[in-house]
């Protein structure tokens, strides 16, 4: 049973309530549209996250396999010596994008055009090249997954928030306003009837005189 809003039974209050009802209905309609878009995007991102997770596991298993072969070929000490110089900073372009009002992060791994491998190409085998390439792919996969996962989290929270507002409007605010408006109409009708009865009574009293 929707709760009656405590208002003075006047025409001004009725106008105010009707305005509030129209605003609430508009917002409910708009939020429902927004919610459907957010859910569609959430499902899409969820699907992509699953794919990205599979990809990351696949890439890492390939990279570790290649690394173990390389370590076997070169030996750990020689490999470590070669890899000392390969450490470098990675550049990630960060920003944000907007999905139907929800701001989500956007990451993109910047490829350094001047980069070298860092190790001597003469002293090492093609196994090391392959390992380095696979490791770079792992990095890319991590950046993609980081973006997708944080987007998924933000969208989930936004869906929850929007759903609560839509439900509050649908089951609490709008029925409450409608009930109060109905109550005010009934009150006005009752007043009219009272007024008519009073007039009739006055008329009878005048006639009796």
């Amino acid at each position: 049973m929707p709760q009656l809003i405590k208002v003075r039974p006047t025409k001004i209050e009725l106008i105010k309530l009707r305005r509030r009802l129209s605003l609430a209905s508009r917002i409910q309609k708009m939020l429902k549209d927004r919610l459907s878009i957010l859910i569609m995007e959430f499902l899409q991102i969820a699907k992509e996250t699953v794919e990205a997770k599979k990809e990351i596991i696949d890439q890492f298993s390939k990279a570790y396999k290649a690394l173990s072969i390389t370590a076997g070929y070169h030996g750990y000490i020689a490999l470590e010596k070669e890899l000392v110089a390969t450490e470098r900073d990675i550049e990630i372009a960060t920003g944000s994008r907007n999905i139907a009002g929800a701001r989500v992060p956007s990451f993109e791994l910047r490829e350094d055009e001047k980069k070298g491998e860092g190790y001597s190409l003469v002293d090492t085998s093609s196994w090391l090249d392959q390992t380095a390439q696979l490791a770079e792919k792992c990095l890319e996969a991590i950046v993609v997954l980081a973006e997708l996962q944080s987007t998924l989290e933000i969208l989930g929270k936004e869906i929850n928030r929007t759903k609560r507002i839509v439900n509050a409007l649908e089951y609490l605010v709008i029925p409450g306003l409608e009930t109060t408006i109905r109550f005010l109409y009934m009150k006005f009708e009752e007043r009219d009837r009272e007024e008519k009865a009073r007039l009739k009574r006055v008329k009878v009293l005048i006639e009796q005189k």
Partner: protein
Amino acid sequence: MVNELPYQRMLQESLKGELRVLNAHLPSEQKPLANLLVEESPNVVCNDGSAHLFKRKELEYLASITSADEQKTLLLPMLIEVNPGQDEMAIICRGEVEEKVVSKILDMPVTTKQRRITVYKPQLAIIRKVLKTTTQYLFSPKILQ
């Protein structure tokens, strides 16, 4: 009797706030693809003052399916108009470039009516999958009427 409960007033204000933020993320101006391709960090400024970053991969994809002249006329981000209570949405376009891009992504011919390409939700999912940062939702002013 209480005229207006503080709770009611607060609720009303928060609902008005929802309306205010609805289209706040729209770009204050759209940029041509050709300009964005030469920018170091391609982005546009939104109405709320935030920056919307474009992914270079998406820009490069768009550049690969359009000619040099078309790149100058293709304005980004492309706007997807959401109509109230309808399953179909519309991509607002100014020329034939948007039509070409959308038909290429959907792999089917599309037609423009009143400067709008009508797309349905399953098609929209495909477009958004490819063009995540180069498209943006626009809530139709009809919603607010």
